[in-house]
């Protein structure tokens, strides 16, 4: 397997913007709604080229979710855009009743998720969104890892009939997945093959896992790295196949430990194949202002944290 490297960094939200613009050209039923964050969500190209299908809703996220649900009646495919905090916690009941329970074909697209939002601090650094969204029946939950994958995921979810939560972020991040790689909802991707420990990562933490793999390789440990871009439905087969080989696992996510990807993996393992699992996630606390890398370090989400967790998991075999 080729060693994973990168030559360029881009923000995943720009991948969303590019994917949405592409959809504007190819699918006339795609419409976009934004709550006064067109620039931050990179929705400007769609707005400029398809002004009749772009709806500015102002700072009114609850109304935006209801509007999107209503627009599906008549065949439109609405993509809502705002920060992850305002896409989920602020409007949970609107999503629950008008979108998830009502089985509406709405794509909730959420930027600035997690600690890597950085300096804006904990009011905006939502770390509970994956949990809230995965608990909703009918909801698909996706957290792609880089610009290319976010663009591909944005395009792919238009073809899935039903509600989707698509989470991405603010900082420029390494691009290491191939351009134009087909995105399959619910299909995990093995990035590095290994035999000693399975590292399941999602979103920005996939790159941190790749860095951890290098740290572990220096110690003679072969880590398997799997990109879980879809938290729900979870690719249980990929997880079980990997841990049958390695015998222990680490989960890594930019989210609370309670309710996140690690929780879902723990359920899968305990029901099917009890296996030592170490979770790299925020441990029941809010974030704070700072640079993304500083925050990942302070809250135990660095590549070194993942490598340390892998050693603990191996020791528990």
């Amino acid at each position, binding site marked *: 397997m080729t060693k994973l490297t990168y030559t360029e960094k881009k923000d995943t939200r720009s991948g969303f913007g590019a994917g949405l613009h592409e959809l504007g050209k190819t699918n006339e039923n795609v419409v976009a709604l934004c709550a006064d964050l067109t620039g931050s969500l990179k929705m400007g190209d769609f707005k400029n080229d398809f002004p009749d299908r772009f709806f500015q809703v*102002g700072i009114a996220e*609850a109304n935006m979710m209801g509007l999107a649900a209503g627009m599906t009646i008549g065949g439109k495919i609405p993509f809502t855009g705002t920060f992850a905090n305002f896409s989920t916690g602020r409007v949970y009941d609107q999503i629950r*009743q008008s979108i998830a329970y009502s089985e509406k074909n709405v794509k909730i697209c959420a930027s600035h998720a997690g600690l890597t939002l950085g300096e804006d601090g904990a009011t905006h650094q939502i770390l509970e969104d994956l949990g809230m969204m995965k608990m909703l029946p009918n909801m698909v939950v996706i957290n792609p890892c880089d610009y290319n994958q976010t663009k591909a995921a944005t395009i792919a979810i238009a073809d899935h009939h039903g509600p989707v939560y698509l989470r991405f972020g603010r900082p420029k991040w390494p691009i290491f997945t191939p351009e134009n790689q087909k995105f399959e909802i619910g299909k995990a991707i093995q990035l590095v093959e290994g035999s000693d420990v399975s590292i399941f990562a999602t979103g920005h933490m996939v790159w941190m896992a790749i860095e951890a793999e290098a740290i572990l390789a220096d110690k003679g440990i072969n880590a398997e790295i799997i990109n879980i871009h879809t938290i729900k439905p979870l690719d249980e087969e990929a997880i079980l196949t990997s841990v049958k080989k390695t015998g222990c696992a680490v989960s890594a996510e930019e989210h609370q430990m309670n309710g996140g990807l690690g929780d879902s993996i723990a359920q899968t393992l305990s029901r099917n194949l009890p296996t030592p699992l170490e979770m790299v996630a925020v441990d029941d606390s809010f974030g704070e202002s700072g640079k993304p890398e500083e925050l990942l370090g302070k809250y135990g989400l660095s590549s070194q944290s993942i490598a340390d967790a892998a050693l603990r998991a191996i020791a528990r075999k």
Partner: protein
Amino acid sequence: MSTPNIEDLQKISSQVRRDIVRMVHAVQSGHPGGSLGCTEFFVALYFHILKHNNSFNPDAVDEDLFFLSNGHISPVWYSVLARSGYFPVSELNTFRKLDSRLQGHPATEEGLPGIRIASGSLGQGLSAALGAAQAKKLNNDSSTVYVLMGDGEQDEGQVWEAALYGAHHKVDNIIATIDYNRQQIDGSTDDVMDLGDLKAKWEAFGWQVIESDGNEIEGLIKSLEHAKTLCGKGKPVLNLMRTEMGYGVDFMVGTHKWHGIAPSDEELANALGQLEETHGDY
């Protein structure tokens, strides 16, 4: 539009009111007060005003759309949907029971014809209706979107987010109605949360406001037909519809006490004695 046969519509209203009190009595739960107060409105809509097809196309292409935002008055909606042929009248017997399509609050999951979005948690219906109205414009579909809200529901902030949106985006193919019975669960709207001058508020938000009497069906139909003539003029339309909660049953009328409780056996008999059986009980 054809001339309505007022006598026929009044007979249907009487039967719908019988359905409402019988449905709520049967399971000893549900919301009779608002349902009885809005009976003429639903009968006027489904038997005269709406351009609709009871074979039920979820996307409602070239059909008028109706959304119920205050979903707790589901009994009146279910009765009128059944009486206008969306599903068998006998199914009203399943209201609020296990495995029923007639959930306590309207829902889509069980596939009941006529329901396009869940409601119950208040304040959300106007947003959905505005979205559907926008979709109709995109689809060059000239039909109209109707939505009913409660007056207590005006306490919800989302209603006013939607009100701003409707005016700003000139959504002029929507007629929103407020059931203005001045009652909510804990008491009168004046006591619980004073709504002030609702007409002036909606006008200030940029809507064309008409006032109507919701328990006088001939006048109500004229008001709704007038509302239709106000569509297409660059502003959304708001129908402030005065009703009496519990209208049609003397001991239920005009009080919040019957917002969400069911009649006893004796009270049911009393109520049915006041309501003529015109189309056969389910």
